[in-house]
């Protein structure tokens, strides 16, 4: 067993640290305050090949492994979880399912758009009455000649009002439940596609979340992703991969919060000495370190199992559950260490705490992760 990152993975971390320090950290607070999509940052991430980095070279990507992708998301999320989220969605939830299920033509067209073409990707599964219970979706797709006609809406779509390419799930046969769900590649320029409500959220203010609406939306027949009726399987496989991305995001948030807290605790003096000199504070940092180390190992392990080609559902759910709950606890502790200052926007830890919460909810709530984990352990 080797716990060392490969030479390439180490360089990805080094490069992403430089990038985050120079390009992300200076604008993170403003991005949150103004709820602004960090367009310039995302363009720069396209320029250096981070957006779509997992896509094989023949389709315009760098052919990076899943651990490299997790490292990139982790490093961005140390300073700005919104930017980490945009990348995680693009790589894991849009490039991922097209790589795994696309035809050669679909890969050539769409993976190139999502890499060299600087087009942002998104994933549209959730509906108002179909969150964790995806089979209750009401978005429908009807085959009419050489195209499908999509009707319905999707909510809470990350990258919703900026993305150009969506992987969308819709019912092609409602009588078959989950076996009646199909996946489609939908471009925002297709007739009948529109963006609905922009969500105002507790955190992740720089991540553009929106409702998307299909009104007799015309989707060419060749944009069916995988076979008809295989959509649910594609969605679940994609979410397995996406969970590694969210684990990496949560890990990054937790690391960022601990780094900020260390800086603060070493300089904030009370009762004549820095608060880092109090054992109570020291023990908090010890617990933070243990949780972060465990979250990192679980996340990288899940990425390594995925890269090996083996089934990784259990590993991904385990990493996502642990890392997201660790991020929530650590950011809450970080605010506590900062005291009154931590509750203000003068310090980044309140933002990190707000950003951490969603990691326990999206791409499968903590409760769903426990269902997945226990199901894998106990069997059916």
């Amino acid at each position, binding site marked *: 067993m080797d716990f060392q990152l490969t*030479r*390439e993975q180490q*360089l*990805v971390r*080094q*490069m992403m640290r*430089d*990038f985050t320090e120079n390009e992300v950290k200076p604008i993170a607070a403003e991005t949150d305050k103004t709820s602004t999509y960090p367009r310039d940052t995302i363009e720069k991430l396209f*320029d*250096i*090949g*981070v957006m779509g*980095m997992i896509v094989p*070279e023949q389709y315009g*990507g*760098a*052919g*990076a492994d899943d651990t*490299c992708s997790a490292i990139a998301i982790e490093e961005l999320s140390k300073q700005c979880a919104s930017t980490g989220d945009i990348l995680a969605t693009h790589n894991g939830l849009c490039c991922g399912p097209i790589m795994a299920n696309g035809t050669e033509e679909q890969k050539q067209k769409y993976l190139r758009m999502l890499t060299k073409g600087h087009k942002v990707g998104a994933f549209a599964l959730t509906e108002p009455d179909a969150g964790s219970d995806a089979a209750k979706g009401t978005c429908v797709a009807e085959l009419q000649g050489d195209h499908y006609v999509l009707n319905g809406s999707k909510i809470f779509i990350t990258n919703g009002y900026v993305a150009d390419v969506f992987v969308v799930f819709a019912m092609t046969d409602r009588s078959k439940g989950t076996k009646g769900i199909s996946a489609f590649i939908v471009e925002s320029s297709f007739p009948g596609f529109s963006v609905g409500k922009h969500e105002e959220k507790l955190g992740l203010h720089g991540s553009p979340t929106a409702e998307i609406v299909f009104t007799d939306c015309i989707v060419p027949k060749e944009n069916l992703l995988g076979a008809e009726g295989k959509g649910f399987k594609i969605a679940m496989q994609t979410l397995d991969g996406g969970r590694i991305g969210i684990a990496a995001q949560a890990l990054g948030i937790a690391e960022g919060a601990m780094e900020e807290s260390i800086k603060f605790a070493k300089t904030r003096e009370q009762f004549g000495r820095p608060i880092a000199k109090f054992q109570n504070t020291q023990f908090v940092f010890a617990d933070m370190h243990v949780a972060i180390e465990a979250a990192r190992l679980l996340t990288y392990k899940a990425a390594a199992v995925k890269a090996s080609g083996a089934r990784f559902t259990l590993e991904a759910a385990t990493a996502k559950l642990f890392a997201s709950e660790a991020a929530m606890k650590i950011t809450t502790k970080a605010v506590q260490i900062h005291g009154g200052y931590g509750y203000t926007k003068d310090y980044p830890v309140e933002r990190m705490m707000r950003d951490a919460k969603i990691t326990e909810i999206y791409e499968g709530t903590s409760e769903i992760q426990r269902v997945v984990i226990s199901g894998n352990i106990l069997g059916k």
Partner: protein
Amino acid sequence: MKAIVCVKQVPDTSGKVAVNPDGTLNRASMETITNPDDLNAVEAALKLKDETGCKVVVITMGPPPAEGMLRELLARGADEAVLVSAREFGGSDTFATSQILAAAVKKVGLEDDDIVFCGRQAIDGDTAQVGSQIAEKLGVPQISYAADIKKEGNTVTVKRMLEDGYMTIQAKTPCLLTCIKELNAPRYMSLSGIMDCYAKPVAVYEYNPLQDDPLIDPPTIGLRGSPTNIFKSFTPPQKGKGKMLEGADKATCETLAAELLKKHII
């Protein structure tokens, strides 16, 4: 056509700075980085590659771990790298280092339309001597403090940034340019660059491949060939804060004039 860039691995002075009892840097205990001005030199070479398709070769002299820095530069877009590394070269000062690097540039091959790029100076020694001495030893024109570079055919037009203004001059290639941070913003490593950098060639020039060059004369290389003697190394005292005068009225102007007179500036 080639762009040859001489680079140096230096201690990261933004982190922990460790100093030996004799006042010299304790390099072994410090993190290393690529010398910042050298990254501007690499970027200048990569921009030339973007414009002309020329080949970019990076050269460094240092211990074997310096290969890691060369891989990073290959990941930024350089095509080939050379590590000059031999026990005989150890302890070289700027004079001896420039002898060895000039010999390495000659071995890579300096053709009519090639340019050698160097950073202005390294943050460890701050001498700004190596680039200029390489040019002397190669017998090619040099332009230092390059803040803007244009190449047309075999002519290079460079805007030099000096303390009191700019100077624009031309030189014929092959020539050597030393680059300053105002020249450009170094690019990041790219993902595809990182994935490919370990497949790119890194040549190692030990003593033997260079020993036939007349510049590699044992009395002029390594510690023995280094005429520099360091008598004392110290941190200079910080300059005091400047004095700020506020106001746009006559009295403020008179106060300013009086201050300048007192310091014999006017």
